[in-house]
């Protein structure tokens, strides 16, 4: 399990990228997907997920669709066009960051 300290700054990027790749997802689905992709080493807590999702929505990078399933109400998140363009930036920013970290810490990054 990666420390949550490391996780904090990157959550937005993760969510954006996941949504880019999978189109339309709801909260629970997102947590399951991240769990899958990280082979279980990142367990996304709801306490972290939903606030971030809402902030991204407030910033205009995500939009939501609500679907009624009987008594349950499911909220699907998708990227807005603005969100889509941000994803690339954020991801490449992060890759750059890793390279820099590698240089500073004098280790190899792959």
């Amino acid at each position: 399990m990666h420390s949550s300290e490391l996780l904090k700054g990157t959550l937005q990027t993760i969510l954006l990228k996941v949504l880019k790749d999978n189109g339309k997802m709801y909260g629970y689905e997102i947590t399951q997907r991240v769990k899958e992709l990280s082979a279980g080493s990142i367990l996304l807590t709801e306490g972290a997920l939903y606030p971030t999702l809402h902030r991204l929505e407030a910033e205009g990078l995500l939009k939501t669709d609500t679907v009624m399933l009987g008594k349950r109400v499911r909220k699907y998140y998708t990227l807005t066009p603005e969100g889509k363009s941000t994803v690339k930036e954020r991801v490449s920013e992060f890759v750059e960051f890793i390279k820099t970290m590698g240089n500073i810490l004098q280790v190899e990054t792959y």
Partner: protein
Amino acid sequence: MNNLTSDNIAYIIKDLNYRGIVAEGIHEELIDHICSATEAEMVKGKKFIDAYHHVLKSFGHTAGLRQTQKQILQSENQKSAIMLKNYLTIAFRNLKKQGFYSFINIGGLAVGVAACLVIVLFIIDELSFDKFNTRANRIYRVNHEIKFGGNHMLMNTSSAPTASALQQDYPEIEATVRFRDYGSYLVKTAEGRESIKEQNVIWTDSTFFKIFSVNVLLGDPKTALREPASVAISRRTADKYFPYGNALGQSLILDSKYNAKVTAVYENIPSTSHFHFDILISMVGDWPVAKEAQSTVFLSNNFPTYLLLKEGVKAKELNNKLGGYLAKYVGPQLAQALGNDFTMEKFKAAGNKYEISLMRLLDIHLHSNFKGEFEPNGNIAYIYLFGTIALFILVIACINFMNLSTARSSNRAKEVGVRKVMGSLRSHLVRQFLTESTLVTIFSFVVALGLAYLFLPFFNNLSLKRLHLPLTDPALYMILFVAALVIGLMAGLYPSFFLSAFKPVNVLKGHVALGMKSGFIRSTLVVFQFVISIFLIIGAITVNRQLNYIQSKKLGFEKDQVLLIKDAYALRPNVQSFRNEALKIGSVESCTISGFLPVEGSSEISRHDNTFWKEGKQPNPDNLVSLQDWRVDNDYINTFKMNVKKGRGFNSEFLSDSSAVVLNEAAIKQFGLGDDPIGKKISTFGGERPDGSPDPNQIESWTVIGVVEDFHFSSMKENILSLGLFLRKSDGFISIRINGNNSQETIQSLEKIWKQLAPGQPFQYSFLDEDFGQMYASEQRLGQIFGAFAGLAIIIACLGLFALTAFTAEQRTKEIGIRKVLGASVSSIVILLSKEFGKLIIIAFVVAVPIAWLGVDWWLKSYTYKTEIGGLVYLFAGLLTFAIAWITVGYQSIKAATSDPVRSLKNE
């Protein structure tokens, strides 16, 4: 994956609700997430309840869930720009959602503020009278109070020599000015053909401009009125007679005999002044008034006198010294008039008074209502009254506003509950309410400004003023803005504090306890509003009844069908000829010539009194009677159809009538003439000694030939004074009794005769009953104003009641639904809903009646002749209010009672 049954889902939803997950925008997501997670666990083989609790654990149980919810809400609100916008958006959304209540709220407050605004303008105007005088603080008027011979008189006048005597003896006085009002004049220029009647003419001393801040545009204020036969005229007068702007040095001819030179033109006197003179005539020289001004008699008081005190002089101290003036100048003359054993002490011991006092210029408009005022003044009592009414109306409107906001906010309890659960976000709640109520208040004030603007002309008509909104004055907007903020904040704080007292659990469970305390306050407010409304209704009814009483009371003469032609003296020397010609007209029944009319009005209507005593005795303070001394002709009594009870009226066949008098019943009583007064005599001083005091060696006697029934000749506020009719020449008016319906034709015929006999003089007439009505013009206006404000207060109170009822009915929808299902009839539900308000109105009635009774008693006390305000009036006011309130409440109750119970119960 729908492994969860419907029951399971319902359970989860309810459970999460209990744990406090209620925020819109997040709780549905969380529910869905938890459901999905629970399903996943159940797939692994757990039972539903175990799966659910496992999921909860991963969320950190209730605390963790709440934390999450809090975080989301916090992050949403953290951006301050979004925050304010958020409040505003929610505020607007709420206002739109509750459009109906918002409308009533805004409307009620706007009406209240508008009414308040108008009244404030009125009060400011009234309080500013005479302030245009830069020396106003040092200007005082000399008032006289004389009680003697059955007469008690408060006068704004002094005697001719008073001013100079005072200035001589008291160094505190810098300057004095006197006035003499001699009624209206017919004025024309030297080349003019038509005379125009000028009302605002007065004789005055040259010191006028030294004391009063009247701006002289042409001419020298110092010398303008120093020479005889000079006039100073106002700008509008100059424009009227000399439109080419060359007034200075020109002539104006007064009453076709006095040729005066225009020596100054001054700026029109502002409307906020207790006098508005257009022509000032210098009081020096040979003309009659000028000569009168040189008199040294201190006992006859016809000259309003004003003093300018030196800087730093304390008026009160000077006032106390004035006894010296009385002892030095008045005492001796009184002694000569009343007999040798006169002393001031005996005079006063007999209950008489002769006193002078100083009155501030700035107090005149609101505190002086003596006989002979230049114009009808205002009254400080009305300032207090209207000020209180304005305050009340404003308070009612604000109360309604707060009431309604509070009631509505209970509906948002769920939101409240959430916010409360947030704990530290309670401040958001308060700020939300404050934003909303401030917004609504500011909007109301804007509407109020518009309403006031529309309503002002109507009010100006009622109050005979020319008020206007100072729309260009930034102070107006600042004051309004601050007031709106204050009211908005107060209205917003009350509901938010009130709601802060809730326990969040209760709120979320749906138990919105409106609490004993709040219900009590609200009821008190409703009662208060209706107390005021009932009071105003009773006031309006009282004033109108008194007016009706006055209009219909027997006066002792017939006021209808009498035409009055003014300024008959303009006909000289053809006055009798006019009368003879007029009598030839078929519809003219009778015609009398006299300046004395049985109605009070302008100063053109003559009044004269004199001192008489029963013949045979020596005149002394005990038996002197102050008698109205009216000069009439033979037809007077007939024309006015007065009732001669004993003896006879004047008759041209009796030559001895030239020394006869017809007394009214009050006079007979005062003289003590007994049951058979015919033939008895009364005496008076027939002449003056060289120094001006009455000559005890010249006594005239008059024989009583008849007794006329007491008739009202002044306001019904006064007792009927002793009056005597004498046969002497007086040609102020020609009064004509007309019969038939065609008064227009008659008037035209009369005008033709006039034009023949008095060419170039204006023919002016009025009807006696209209002039009579004018005496009570101020009461009429008062009645209208009361009526208007009563209506306003009721409207505002009802608006509040209407909205409140609607709200309460809504709150009790479920209760009503159940009652209906259990078989209650529509009427029983209506009664249920109205019962509470009915009780409040009865309480209001009980409180209002004694207050109203006190008010009515106080107002009617000023009338000697008054109507009865019996219990019926109070009852009527109470019933009227009850009926109006019931209609208001009833509509909502019936709507609620007839709604479909199934629907109301289903929407739970």
